[in-house]
């Protein structure tokens, strides 16, 4: 079993997944992630001894692009989370979603999403990582827009896509900068070469900013966080998957992965600290405002992501360990809580925590899951969440963190306590309000397929809290791959009476206090209407509106519908662009003039000038076309004398054809004979025409003035006959040396003809009389 196979197995399995979604019970699809989980677990002992598994696959050899995959501690932690939680999610989704014609499509998208996540975390190549990164954006677009009939769902899917893809573009720029500076796109080589230490000054700052922008957009950092809360319109399995182990953690992953390269740059620590803690603060405030369970959980996800980003920014060896422990803690409890929220939604018909209560009696299994997960979220012993929180406080107390950030950490953790209490206590043991539930709802525990996954994850949170040694070496390997050196990692539940414990107590007290006055806190926070009106989400809408207003304005400006205007615009802009570039880059050169030459070389220009004047002075279209034809024939003679018989031949044919056809067209068209332009317009058109002519003369002069590089024409002259058996260089180039170009050109020609047919038949509503023996241009009956 190779690493490569593990990544491509889900992609290869896609058709099978689709068929299974159609014909059999979709629960069997969960076998795919389960199998992958076993595959990755098989590598765990190797990776825990700080070995890495590397595999390269040639992708585009002519560009030197390989797909490199590398399994180290960090990648393995992510891969296990993706596939392990994936198994629970696939199983849960098979019972959660109604089986209909959407089912196969949904599971296919989920499967592709999982594969892209695996590809992203295992890629050792920056470009490969980026490709998989964008694939997760695309497949999450399909998943969030699960119900395309709803406008809300379309908007959220689009918002998620636009924000994450825009971030991806920034990241691409950053990666290209990093790759070209470091001389390699392979992350392990960038780390080994100590590229970060050589990056300095503004280049380093730009690089950090661009790459962090990508990571922030994916990991929903302030002010790019609004897509994540809106993605809650997706079905619950999607939210649970995207928010716990996958999509949003990818930004955190990237920051951790590039930490050894970029942490030497001065901007790194302040940027991550500031953005991370700002995100924590905003997420906490927004979470306390919400009553919808899924949206509350979404905002706490934002808080957690902020925490992780902040921790990566802290320049302290314990910070990475705290980040990794918290990553696992959060993935375990958040996945279970999301699935619990979905179960409540299914059973009680609502997710509004303001009216939910007393479900514990009717749903005992769900209540147990919710309590275990919530205790871990609140950071209470003996769960893994407690260890995670203690580690975070240890970092916060290390003296490397500003006081403001420390205060935000306490607020964020208190917020976690409140939300945990709302979900576990209020919904399951609070004052039951049966009457408030939608009619006909009998709360009940769901089928085992829905509770098995979250129960296992919640119990894991407890077991690992009691036995932290079980994940110690795995997380140690992950920390080693972030730090670049072996890390001494000792996890323990009980640290004794430490300052961290004291702060835990403070947090708990604050959280309980907030919880008791929850409804009052909510009312108070709701009074800040400015958040709704001017928050990032509202700004996103305003931005989109402004964009469409701008494009309406711009379309009106450019697409006037007047052919003369189009001509003036295109020709004028081309001329201006050429002249500006030439003058700015000082490329305007005049060739030395020669006074010798054959007689024709003097006569021809005079003829051409005379014909051009005739075009300008012509009183009718027929006159104008014939004069223009004369100019064209004159140019063909120039080609002929210049030693380009093929070009002259073509020019003659084209001229003859266009004169014949144009004359025929003119004969049919109701052209106004008088020139309708005002003198002002005529002057403007004349100016543009002169400018255009002048710009091309300038280009010609400059080209002629430069010494001619003969290497290409020498090559063609020498190799035309031996290689291509032809003496006509032009034709040999067209059909042999550059045949692909020609193929492209005749394809364009064909498309133009097809487009003309389409326009012609599209514009004529009436069924015109035509020859029925012409099948290819036959049109559909109206």
């Amino acid at each position, binding site marked *: 079993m190779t690493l490569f196979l593990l990544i491509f197995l889900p992609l290869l399995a896609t058709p099978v997944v689709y068929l299974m979604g159609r014909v059999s019970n979709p629960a069997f699809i969960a076998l795919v992630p389960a199998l992958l989980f076993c595959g990755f677990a098989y590598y765990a002992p190797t990776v825990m001894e700080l070995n890495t598994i590397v595999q390269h696959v040639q992708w585009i050899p002519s560009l030197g692009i390989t797909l490199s995959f590398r399994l180290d501690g960090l990648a393995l932690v992510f891969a296990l989370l993706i596939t392990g939680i994936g198994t629970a999610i696939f199983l849960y989704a098979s019972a959660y979603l109604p089986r209909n014609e959407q089912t196969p499509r949904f599971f296919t998208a989920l499967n592709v999403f999982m594969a892209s996540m695996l590809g992203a975390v295992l890629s050792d190549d920056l470009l490969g990582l980026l490709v998989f990164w964008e694939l997760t954006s695309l497949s999450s677009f399909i998943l969030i827009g699960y119900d395309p009939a709803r406008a809300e769902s379309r908007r959220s899917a689009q918002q998620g896509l636009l924000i994450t893809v825009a971030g991806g573009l920034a990241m691409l720029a950053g990666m290209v900068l990093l790759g070209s500076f470091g001389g390699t796109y392979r992350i392990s080589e960038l780390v080994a070469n100590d590229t970060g230490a050589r990056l300095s000054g503004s280049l380093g700052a730009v690089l950090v900013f661009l790459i962090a922008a990508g990571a922030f957009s994916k990991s929903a950092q302030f002010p790019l966080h609004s897509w994540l809360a809106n993605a809650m319109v997706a079905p619950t399995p999607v939210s649970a998957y995207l928010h716990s182990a996958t999509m949003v953690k990818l930004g955190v992953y990237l920051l951790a992965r590039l930490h050894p390269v970029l942490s030497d740059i001065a901007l790194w620590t302040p940027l991550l600290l500031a953005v991370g803690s700002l995100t924590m603060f905003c997420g906490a405030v927004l979470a306390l405002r919400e009553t919808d369970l899924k949206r509350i959980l979404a905002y706490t996800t934002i808080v957690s992501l902020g925490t992780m980003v902040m921790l990566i920014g802290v320049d302290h060896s314990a910070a990475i360990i705290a980040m990794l422990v918290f990553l696992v803690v959060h993935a375990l409890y958040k996945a279970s809580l999301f699935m619990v929220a979905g179960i409540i939604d299914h059973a009680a018909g609502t997710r509004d925590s303001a009216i939910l209560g007393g479900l514990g009696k009717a749903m005992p299994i769900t209540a147990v899951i919710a309590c275990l997960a919530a205790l871990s979220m609140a950071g209470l012993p003996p769960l893994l969440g407690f260890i995670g929180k203690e580690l975070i406080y240890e970092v916060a107390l290390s003296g490397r963190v500003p006081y403001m950030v420390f205060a935000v950490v306490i607020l964020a953790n208190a917020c976690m306590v409140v939300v945990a209490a709302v979900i576990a206590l209020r919904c399951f043991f609070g004052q039951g309000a049966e009457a408030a539930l939608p009619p006909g709802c009998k709360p009940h525990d769901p089928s085992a397929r829905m509770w098995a996954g979250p129960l296992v994850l919640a119990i894991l949170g407890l077991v690992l809290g009691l036995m932290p040694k079980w994940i110690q070496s795995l997380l140690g390997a992950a920390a080693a791959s972030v730090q670049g050196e072996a890390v001494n990692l000792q996890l323990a539940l009980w640290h004794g009476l430490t300052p961290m414990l004291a702060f835990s107590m403070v947090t708990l007290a604050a959280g309980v206090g907030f919880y008791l006055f929850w409804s009052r806190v909510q009312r108070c926070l709701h009074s800040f209407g400015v958040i709704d009106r001017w928050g990032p989400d509202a700004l996103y809408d305003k931005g989109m509106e402004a964009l469409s207003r701008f494009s309406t304005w711009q379309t009106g400006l450019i697409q006037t519908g007047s052919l003369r205007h189009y001509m003036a615009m295109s020709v004028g802009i081309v001329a201006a662009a050429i002249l500006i570039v030439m003058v700015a880059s000082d490329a305007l050169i005049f060739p030395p003039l020669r006074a010798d030459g054959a007689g024709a070389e003097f006569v021809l220009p005079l003829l051409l000038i005379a014909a051009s004047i005739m075009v300008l002075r012509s009183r009718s279209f027929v006159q104008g076309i014939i004069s223009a034809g004369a100019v064209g024939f004159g140019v063909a003679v120039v080609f002929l004398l210049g030693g380009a018989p093929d070009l002259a*031949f073509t020019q003659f044919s084209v001229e003859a054809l266009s004169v*014949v*056809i144009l004359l025929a067209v003119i004969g049919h068209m109701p052209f106004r004979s008088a020139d309708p332009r005002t003198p002002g317009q005529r002057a403007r058109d004349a100016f543009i025409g002169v400018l255009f002519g002048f710009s091309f003369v300038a280009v010609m002069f400059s080209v002629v003035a430069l010494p001619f590089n003969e290497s290409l024409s020498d090559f063609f002259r020498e190799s035309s006959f031996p290689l*291509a058996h032809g*003496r*006509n260089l032009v*034709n040999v180039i067209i059909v042999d040396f550059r045949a692909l170009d020609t193929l492209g050109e005749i394809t364009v020609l064909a498309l133009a003809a097809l487009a003309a047919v389409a326009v012609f038949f599209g514009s004529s509503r009436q069924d015109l009389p035509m020859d029925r023996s*012409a099948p290819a241009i036959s049109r559909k009956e109206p």
Partner: protein
Amino acid sequence: MNSVIFRVGSSVILPFALLLSLYLLWRGHNEPGGGFIGGLIAAAGYASYALPRGYTALRQVLPIDSLQLLALGLGAALMSGLAGLMADHAYLTHAWTAMGGMALGTTLVFDIGVYLAVLGAILTFLSLFLEQ
């Protein structure tokens, strides 16, 4: 357009234009000429024949539909590249054979494709115009 001179003259032009275009296509690899020029000249012949006579007359002298001609040309050009693929070279690497001391290659197929595509495209535009 309907002058007698043009009508009579163009009926003489068409066969000569077609012959000339085929000749140019054939000799194009070694002498001035080729598929592109050949296609243009053939199209000019058809255009001068059809303009005074109309669409029906064009259909009578054209064995197949102009879009089919275009498709045929594009197809021929595409197929000519397959020989290279089969010989394990890059696509559009032309293959050659010597017949009676004269080198013949898939370039000719490619050039015929260009000829037909150019002719087909112009005739499509022409017949759209004539149908109006």
